């Protein structure tokens, strides 16, 4: 390549890096946070030994090491872009007689890996394994004598399989392709390819004897995807694209073929990108992240921009409304999907219980929050622990006075990078429990949590539990807001009216007025005796709503004018 071509190629690589960084940092940042909270990377010999005991363990350990930096989305985006950049560079370095026109082909494997990493449960271990394999094959190809090189490669295969998993088959695969392209001794090359294939087929069978994993996982990789029954197809396509790119590179000798190779490398990924990105999930992860960080106004701004349309989005919006004191006045300005949008039922997965647990935590139902956090952590499909959830569990145990259990989580968090300081500060509190109430969050939680009424959690009796929280501590107005919202969303107006009378302040909030007026209209012949906190504006608006309803206006028209009222919800939603 001449200087100009070198500059163009460098520019292409730099543009690729920038593109990947920009995508993950600006479009997909909450996927980065999601990845971080699905693991707890611990510094220490025990964790290291546990990790490397499984085929592919070193790759998994290294992947975990990198993912801990996903605590900050820009760091995560940078790490992913560097990994993909390295994949591209090493693919290029492994090309025999790489030409200017062939250079774009080196983007094929990282482009497939990019699509793979758009899946929130794809693990970067696969990228680490590809990079390690490409680095090794590049180093081995520097050995000139094909026989010696082949023997070393075969001998290294078990170690590579153990360290980086089945993707390490890439080492002999790339070496074999390069040997054929070099037109070395064909007999040696064929024997090497055959021996490598035999070895690749045999290694998982041997590993099965000491690794408690099904054979398909030992063949397709234990740590490349969070779900053990998912075959990481895109990761393997990325793997296959390396020898394919190396093999076809010599066909692209003439400079004018650069445009073709660029199209081959970029177009499929560009066309497929929308299929592999999931912005609905990104929004969900965003809601969870914002709820975790207490970014209530940001949640509401997000819901303003994009109407919440999933239980998690609705429950986080309602939590944000409650935390900012607007649940009673603005909740019907947002889409509501019934009581499930306030406090969804527990589902056995590793994500949806987390925001729900966060809601219970803020309500003061510490045991219930603990259940949801614990179950979410246990539900992580690849059996990892979560630093974020361990931190939440340390808090709930600390609040409950279970100091030794809290210390167990704190001990583990002390071995992490980004939770270490918090863990050390918390350890001081555990050493001096008298100091716990000096932390406002804990003091508040201890004051609002249930202390007297021992009942079993029941989704059907949430109203009773919320009521008891308020009865035990009437400063817990959020519990009362939720109780009233629960009644409204269930359209249980008699219960709402009964509970509403317990309110000492804030009883005249907009939606409460709307519900009282509605209840009054349903149970009385006229407005005489209606509570005097009902404003004239509400009464007039209700009259207008009833008139419009009776005139037979369609739902869309009603929504336009009354969509932010409880009356609209009562008549048109959650049927």
């Amino acid at each position, binding site marked *: 390549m001449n200087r100009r071509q070198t500059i163009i190629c460098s520019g292409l690589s730099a543009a690729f890096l920038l593109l990947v960084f920009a995508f993950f940092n600006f479009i997909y940042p909450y996927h980065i946070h999601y990845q971080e909270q699905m693991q707890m990377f611990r*510094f*220490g*010999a*025990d964790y*290291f030994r546990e990790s490397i005991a499984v085929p592919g363990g070193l790759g998994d350990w290294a992947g975990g090491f990198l993912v801990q930096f996903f605590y900050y989305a820009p760091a995560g985006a940078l790490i992913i872009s560097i990994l993909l950049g390295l994949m591209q560079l090493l693919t290029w370095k492994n090309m025999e007689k790489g030409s200017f026109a062939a250079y774009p082909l080196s983007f094929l494997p990282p482009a497939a890996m990019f699509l793979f990493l758009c899946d929130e449960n794809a693990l970067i271990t696969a990228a680490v394994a590809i990079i390690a394999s490409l680095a090794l094959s590049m180093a081995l190809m520097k050995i000139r004598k094909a026989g010696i090189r082949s023997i070393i490669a075969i001998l290294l295969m078990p170690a590579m399989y153990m360290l980086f998993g089945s993707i390490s088959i890439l080492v002999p695969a790339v070496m074999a392709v390069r040997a054929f392209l070099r037109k070395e001794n064909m007999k040696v090359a064929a024997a090497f390819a055959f021996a490598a294939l035999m070895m690749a087929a045999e290694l998982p069978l041997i590993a*099965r*004897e000491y690794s*408690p*994993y*099904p054979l398909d996982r030992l063949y397709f990789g234990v740590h490349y995807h969070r779900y*053990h*029954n998912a075959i990481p197809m895109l990761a393997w396509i990325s793997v296959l694209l390396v020898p394919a790119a190396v093999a076809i590179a010599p066909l692209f000798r003439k400079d004018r073929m650069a445009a073709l190779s660029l199209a081959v490398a970029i177009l499929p990924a560009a066309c497929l990108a929308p299929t592999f990105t999931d912005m609905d999930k990104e929004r969900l992860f965003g809601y969870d992240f914002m709820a975790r960080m207490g970014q209530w106004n940001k949640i509401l701004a997000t819901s303003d921009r994009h109407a919440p349309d999933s239980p998690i989005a609705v429950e986080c919006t309602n939590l944000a409304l409650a935390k900012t004191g607007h649940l009673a006045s603005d909740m019907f300005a947002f889409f509501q999907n019934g009581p499930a949008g306030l406090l969804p039922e527990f589902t*056995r997965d590793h994500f949806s219980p987390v925001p729900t647990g966060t809601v219970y935590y803020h309500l003061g*139902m*510490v*045991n*219930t929050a*603990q*259940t949801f956090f*614990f*179950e979410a*952590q*246990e*539900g*992580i499909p690849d*059996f990892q*622990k979560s630093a974020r959830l361990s931190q939440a569990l340390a808090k709930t145990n600390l*609040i*409950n*006075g*279970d100091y*030794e*259990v809290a*210390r*167990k989580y704190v*001990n*583990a968090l002390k071995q992490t*990078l980004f939770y*270490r300081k918090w863990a050390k500060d918390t350890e001081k509190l555990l050493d001096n429990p008298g100091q716990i109430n000096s932390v406002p969050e804990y003091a508040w939680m201890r004051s609002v*949590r*249930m*202390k007297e*009424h*021992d*009942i*079993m*959690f*029941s989704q059907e009796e949430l109203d009773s*539990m919320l009521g008891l929280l308020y009865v035990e501590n009437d400063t817990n107005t959020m519990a009362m807001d939720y109780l009233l919202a629960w009644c409204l969303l269930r359209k249980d107006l008699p219960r709402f009216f009964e509970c509403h009378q317990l309110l000492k302040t804030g009883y005249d909030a907009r939606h409460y007025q709307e519900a009282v007026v509605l209840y009054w209209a349903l149970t009385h012949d006229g407005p005489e005796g209606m509570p005097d906190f009902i404003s004239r504006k509400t009464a007039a608006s209700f009259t207008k709503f009833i008139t419009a309803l009776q005139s037979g206006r369609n739902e869309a028209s009603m929504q336009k004018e009354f969509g932010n009222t409880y009356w609209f919800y009562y008549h048109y939603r959650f049927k």
Partner: protein
Amino acid sequence: MMKRLAYILMSILMLGSCYRFDPAEARYTDGPIWPDYMDVTVPVGIAPLNFCYTAEDGPVPVTTFIHGETSISIKGREVVWKDKEWKKLLKAAKGGDITVRSSVLPDEWTIHVSEDGIDYGINYRLIAPGYEVYSKMGIYERDLSSYKERALIENTQFDGCVNCHAYNRGNPADYSLHIRGAHGATLLNIEGEMAAYNTKTDSTLGFCVYPYWHPEGEYIAYSSNNTRQGFHVLPDKLIEVFDLDSDLQVYDIRSNSLITSASIKKKDVWETFPAFSADGKTLYFCAATPRPIPSETDQIRYNLCSVDFDPATGAIGSQIDTLIFAEGMGKSVSFPKPSYDGRFLVYTLSDYGNFSIWHHEADLWIMDLATGESRPMSLANSGDTESYHSWSSNSRWMMFSSRRDDGLYTRLFFTHIDENGQEAKPFMLPQKHPLHYYNYLNRSYNVPEFVTGPVDLDRVKAEKLINSPERIQFGIR
């Protein structure tokens, strides 16, 4: 930022380094050492009882172990034995005492070395002490003479949960292992042959759980339980596990059929936790009168009952005897375990229900089967939960689970039971670096059972059997 970088670098450098005891980790006890191995009774074959001092500072202790002419001193805040020295000392002290003196403690203590041997090892399930969802778990085997632990089967191999496992008096050749979930099955290994069974029949309540082998090895008693969980909202309690219904049945291995009887399958009684007597002629179990759930969950009380069993015919008697009327005491019995010599029966007593592991008040009690008298095992019990327990094959050692250290994570303890049924102060399952090990172990020991030798469980075959849809159906007799 620089501090973080330095932390990363230091930590990476330490990856390959050996474990170092950190006295700041010491917790769990107000006592001077942990685990508390003062004045305990141990078997000759046990792995070294390493321990640490709980004081973070002060002079470095020198601990001296003396028996006869032999005196071994170990310096350090963590006392770590050389395996050979420990074994030699125990062998020499068999039937006698080892005196222990510490340079930093005013009083000496003893370790009594029993003449009674202990079995080869133990099997247990390791699982996080959680609610409904489970992460990695499995059945593991520990050689009691060393710190070696190996996985027999783990749920990394299939979708599901490994559950009730039982051996015939610790015989590793015969076992029953239950798997729940999508690939639910009961693996029975009889005389080296493993097969997967469907234990649910049209005539029984559900899958067969809580297995207990008949001493002659021809029957296994099971219960079938319709189990549910509830979660408390108050901090003192977390979980309540209860049955909505339960029955007993006996599996006849030779005819592959379940034997049922009206006496242990009453509609107005919940029967559970079956256990055969040492002579195989009596079936012990717990029985309760059903109560509305959840309103009267705390009123469910199980009594200890028994019924005759004829090993020749498999006939189950019609007369139910109540051995302990726990209901009258306002208490509830679970996990009746008769000793294999027929002298005693140990059970767990809690305030209500049958899932005593979640009851802080649960304690072990021992009944003299000759007199019918019961007493709490005060030396074994603690202020927190004691629950599942099992006898060694010679009936001289009892292993039990306890949450005495942190109130949540279950750990294993061993107590010697003499010929009069008197327990000794228990000792905790030894680990090479116990404080570090238990600090970072995020799973509980569950259903611990003695085994007289290594269990030959072909993991690959078990995985194939579990993942295959093929099941041998239990019949009904």
